[in-house]
């Protein structure tokens, strides 16, 4: 809907492993349709770390879940493409579903559900924010990692095309596995590999720890174990959704270092979802800034961090406390992220109501504009400087849009408080 005028073009590169085009994920709730991901495009290169950064409620976590097809009802991926470069997979599908194949790329969203599921583990994997809730409390940590190893082992043993919906492991197999140990899903070899993985992510006494339950692990250790679980399938793309948010600062650094080391070792690509700009600066090669379900600016880390074009990106960077200049005041962005309910969203730049440089032109939805090289932004300022004569009157949006009204109940107080501290 937004990109009718200027089709979004992902700057393609030979090294791309993943090209996401116009991804749309919607939630159909009682309050209305929520456009959580609204035409998102980006590319992830091989052995690269791509960061998606934004405030909470910007749709970045839903983007992460969409990549693995883990969006659950009432949510659904409603449009777009996720092109994934995998020569074997492309060969396999070239005959049967030619529309889903483009060169070595396969559009994951056009595959059947079973085929997409088969990609989880060996192709895509994910680590979650809160390891304590991402592990099943009533199974040992070792068992849960061994399951992931087993998925990979079975994936290698079977050609992708014959894997059924249950991946050859139905209820009958499970029930017989309960009675006969040798029919269990996880075999001994996988359990040993799980212990090796635990060792690899730096867990002391891995053989003993493997038999413990998640509640017996500390937060940092469990996060390491979750990384081990995600790496078991030797994935091409690891999606990390706020991997360090739940941890305290010293452990955060350890986990980030671990991720960096493992990435260097395995050559995987990482899609890192975070609201923490420090983490982005430390980890990422390329970055996309998300706001209200859209990527408003993207490019290399240098493009976006050193030369931000979009006022939102500028605001975001301005709100990071600069440790070198402690005297500087924090400059949070006024207002709140819109609630993304379709009927509340006017057809305009979604940031205009919070934007210090909002102009009349911003009342039309801005398409994505190339700034130069890989750098692109969804903002009219790419075309020209801010023109004060076109500026929207102060309070233009107040009370006029339902989005503000809906978001205001709990948040105006916060916003006002923020204004009070930032307007000095």
């Amino acid at each position, binding site marked *: 809907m937004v990109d009718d005028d200027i089709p979004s073009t992902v700057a393609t590169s030979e090294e791309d492993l993943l090209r996401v085009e116009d991804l749309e994920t919607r939630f159909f709730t009682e309050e209305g349709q929520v456009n959580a991901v609204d035409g998102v495009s980006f590319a992830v290169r091989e052995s690269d770390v791509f960061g998606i950064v934004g405030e909470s409620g910007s749709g970045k976590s839903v983007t992460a*879940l969409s990549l*693995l097809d*883990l969006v*659950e*009802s009432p949510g659904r991926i409603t449009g777009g493409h996720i092109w994934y470069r995998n020569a074997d997979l492309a060969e396999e599908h070239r005959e049967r579903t030619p529309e889903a194949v483009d060169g070595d790329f396969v559009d994951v969203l056009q595959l059947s559900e079973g085929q997409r*599921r*088969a*990609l*989880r*583990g*060996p192709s*895509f*994997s*994910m680590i*979650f924010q*809160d390891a304590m*809730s*991402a*592990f*099943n*409390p*009533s*199974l040992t940590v070792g068992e*849960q990692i061994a*399951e*992931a190893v087993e*998925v*990979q082992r079975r*994936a290698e043993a079977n050609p992708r095309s014959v894997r059924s*919906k*249950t*991946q*050859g*492991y*139905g*209820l009958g*197999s*499970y029930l017989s596995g309960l009675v006969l140990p040798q029919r269990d*899903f996880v075999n001994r070899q996988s359990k040993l590999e799980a212990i090796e993985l635990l060792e690899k992510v730096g867990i002391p006494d891995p053989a003993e720890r493997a038999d413990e*339950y998640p*509640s017996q692990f500390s937060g940092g250790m469990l996060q390491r174990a*979750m990384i081990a*679980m*995600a790496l*078991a*399938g030797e994935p091409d793309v690891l999606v990390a959704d706020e991997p360090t948010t739940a941890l305290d600062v010293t452990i955060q650094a350890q986990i980030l270092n671990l991720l960096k080391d493992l990435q260097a070792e395995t050559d995987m690509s990482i899609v890192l979802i975070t609201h923490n700009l420090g983490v982005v600066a430390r980890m990422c090669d390329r970055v996309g800034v998300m706001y209200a379900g859209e990527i408003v600016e993207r490019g290399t880390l240098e493009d976006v961090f050193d030369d931000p074009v979009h006022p939102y990106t500028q605001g975001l960077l301005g709100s990071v406390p600069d440790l070198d200049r402690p005297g500087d005041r924090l400059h949070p962005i006024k207002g709140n992220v819109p609630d993304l309910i379709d009927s509340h969203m006017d057809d305009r730049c979604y940031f205009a109501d919070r934007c210090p440089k909002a102009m009349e032109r911003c009342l039309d939805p801005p398409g994505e504009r190339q700034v130069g090289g890989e750098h692109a932004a969804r903002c009219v300022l790419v075309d020209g400087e801010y023109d004060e004569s076109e500026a929207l009157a102060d309070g233009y949006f107040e009370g006029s849009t339902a989005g503000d009204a809906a978001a205001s109940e709990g948040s105006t107080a916060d916003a006002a408080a923020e204004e009070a501290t930032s307007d000095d």
Partner: protein
Amino acid sequence: MSLAKFLVRRSLQGLFVIWGVVTAVFMLRFVTPGSPVDFVAPLDASPELRARIAAELGLDQPMYIQYLDYLWGLLQLDMGYSYISSTPAAARVFARLPATIELAVAATVVAIVFSIPLGVISATNRHEPADYAATGFSLVGISTPNFWLGIMLVLLVSVQLGWFPTGRRAIGFWPAVQLIWQEGTLAGIVVWLRYITLPAITLGTYFTALITRLTRSGMLDELGKEYVRAARAKGLPETLVRYKHALRNTLIPIITILGLQLGTLIGGAVITEAVFTWPGLGTLVIDAINSRDWPIIQGSLIVIGAGFVIVNTIVDGLYAYINPQVVYE
């Protein structure tokens, strides 16, 4: 606290409750209007005859002596003699026990076999016809009195269709099994199955409905949790996501609730027995109440109460065993 210690403590608690049960049952006779002698003696009995009968039954002793006598007897599995038939009460009670156990176990099997898949199907096909059907079934199931259900089954299946026999069971499970290797025939088991089917469905329906309900809501909770998403993210087959991960955590609390519902199962068995004239403890206790046959009443109630406590203790132990999270308080 270790598991072993927990089990020992739980068993001691169980014994304490059983002692309470025995005491309560014993007291029951003293709060009930009328003397047992009224029921045993002829209507025109002389005071001398009545006194003799009372002495014979041990009723002339002070209450605490009678109580200690009774406890002492119980420890040797002696529950006295039936006032009506003069046979040992313990023998009669224990002779009826297998029929009740068979019925309760068969009903539990029916309940578990049908309810858990129903609950899972219901939860994994939310807002689809299968879910509505399962939800509707469980609502009706928990709202139907089982004696009426039994009568309706008899009316529809036995009277109208003639499929299953009605009336008391023709053979016990154990004799039927013995027939297999003594005579090499399955006929005994077939007869046993034909007789137990309707009572088992009658007694099992409430539990099928209840467990379906609990499984459905538990599964819905569990399937929404992050570990399920993580299991899917690592590519685990959906079967394992549902049954090994989500169902496991769903069943852990259900086991406790079932332990609490065991009383309902036994109570249901009593009335199911009345509907099908099943020769179990239920029919025994009802007959004994009607004829004030105290040794039988006391014996059956104690066996029922103690059985309940024992099974509950086992369920607790099982719960502690399968749930590594359990805190032994």
